[in-house]
């Protein structure tokens, strides 16, 4: 049973880091395009 829980947790961990990375990537791209237009790209 412990082995099954470990397998699920590891898979969920990888997916979670993917979600986290996607959010960051989207924010970078959105922020970049907005601040580029305004000329104030400091965060």
């Amino acid at each position, binding site marked *: 049973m412990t082995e099954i829980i470990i397998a699920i947790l*590891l898979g969920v961990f990888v997916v979670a880091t993917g979600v986290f990375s996607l959010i960051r990537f989207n924010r970078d791209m959105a922020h970049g395009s907005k601040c580029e237009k305004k000329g104030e790209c400091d965060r």
Partner: protein
Amino acid sequence: MNVYLIGMLISMVAYVVIGFFISRTVKNANDFYVAGRKAPTLLIVGSLVASYCSTGLFMGDVGEAVRGTYTPVMITIAMLVTGYVLGSIFFGKYLRRSEVLTIPEFFGKRFQSRKMKVLASLTSLVIYLVYMLSIMQGIGTLMSYVTGLNYNVCIALALVCFTVLTITSGSKGVLITDTIMFGVFTVAAFIGAIVIVVKAGGWNEAVSALTAHNPALFSWHGTAVASGYSSSDNMVWAVMTGITWIAVCMVGPWQSSRYLMAKNEHTVVRSSCIVAFCVFIIEFLMMTVGAFVIKLNPAIVNEPSNAMIWAAMNVMPLILGVVMLTGVLAAGISSATTFLSLIGSAFANDLIEVKDEKKKVRIGRIAIAIAAAVILLLAVINPPNIYIIMCLSGTVVVCAWFPVCIASIWSKRVTRTGAFCGMLFGFIGCAVMKILSTAGILSLPIYLDAFFVGIVLNILGLVIGSALTKVSPEEKEEREKLMKTPDSEFDKKEIKKTRKYIYGYMISGVAILLVLLLLWALPYAKTI
């Protein structure tokens, strides 16, 4: 002449010849040190995986599985692969944006400090030397075991091959040959694994038989419990090592330096998504199939590191065995070329600041030749106390670099003094703790690895050093430049494509879950 030796010699000559042809396209320092900054996703993937996979994977990690720490190491692997994607998003693409030749140069530019550049270069050089020695050990052991040749002759042959390759073609050649070698050892690993699984009676049958023979082998705690560790100790070790290696894959210089060669920032993110899955699958396959070798040869537990080598020589058809062993050798050589090229750039670009392009390439080549000679000498003499230095693994350089790398991008307050203190304290703290524990002078609890001591000291240095000094206008300007995304990165098609790769990475997380569940946890639970 031994057929395995013939195969290995042919492959080494082939790499040198390829390197020679690539050398004709090396025109300037950019070509030599960062492959002209034009590398597509495939080459970055090839080089990243090849730098990660050395003889340490095919002999060391497989040995751990055979020895009985299968699950703890597997947990570490599944955790560390996430470091690639996190690293590309939070550090790699900014590193690429800085358009420097080396990571120490990035620190020097970001903090407008030559001291930072030199410190980063020196800390990385120590680790490159240690890694090169351990790769030489792996290659020497593999070649002498397989061919029967003298150990010193084996390491000299391999060293001549990868030194000539690196000197002639630089990073451009390293990228291309790394990718070829990545292809060779991946194909060899997959076909070899199929043969071993068939000979072991099928996947589920092998898991069941081995579990019946030794119930602890695939269990969550492993057989290491028999050596005096508790089950929870093993879990704590696995998670701690996993966290440590996430940091290694995020900012480790032999990994993140590949991003400097990428053609754009999208390539950085895309390659990291592919690498994460490739590394997991190769590791999972080799470790599990390596454990299956016990079913074919129970005596292999007495020499666990040689499990795959034994299988290649005794289980696989001759030609496939030659390809498999050539693949393992390729894994070792590809890592060695990466480290050797990094040593060259550390000298010519960071320690000696050469302005002239041609001179910079020439000094890099001389530095590579000298470093190779020193490494050969150390590997042959093998001084009795060298084990003290050998304990300084990649975690030491990450202790010195990790918080500084992240702060250099994401903190407005970090100053050059803070960064310098953080890097110095992190390196010394981790190195001293490692040396003391290896020498048996200090015994650390399992949850207090030297890595965490180094990281805490690094953060303390960063915070205190930055609190006592002010960010200069030049440092502020450099950070602002890093935060400004180049116009070329805002191509909507490219953004959409990169987003698809990140979705792909998330799907690979589900695939990892299914692989672990269907090929390990469920067959094991069914038998137990």
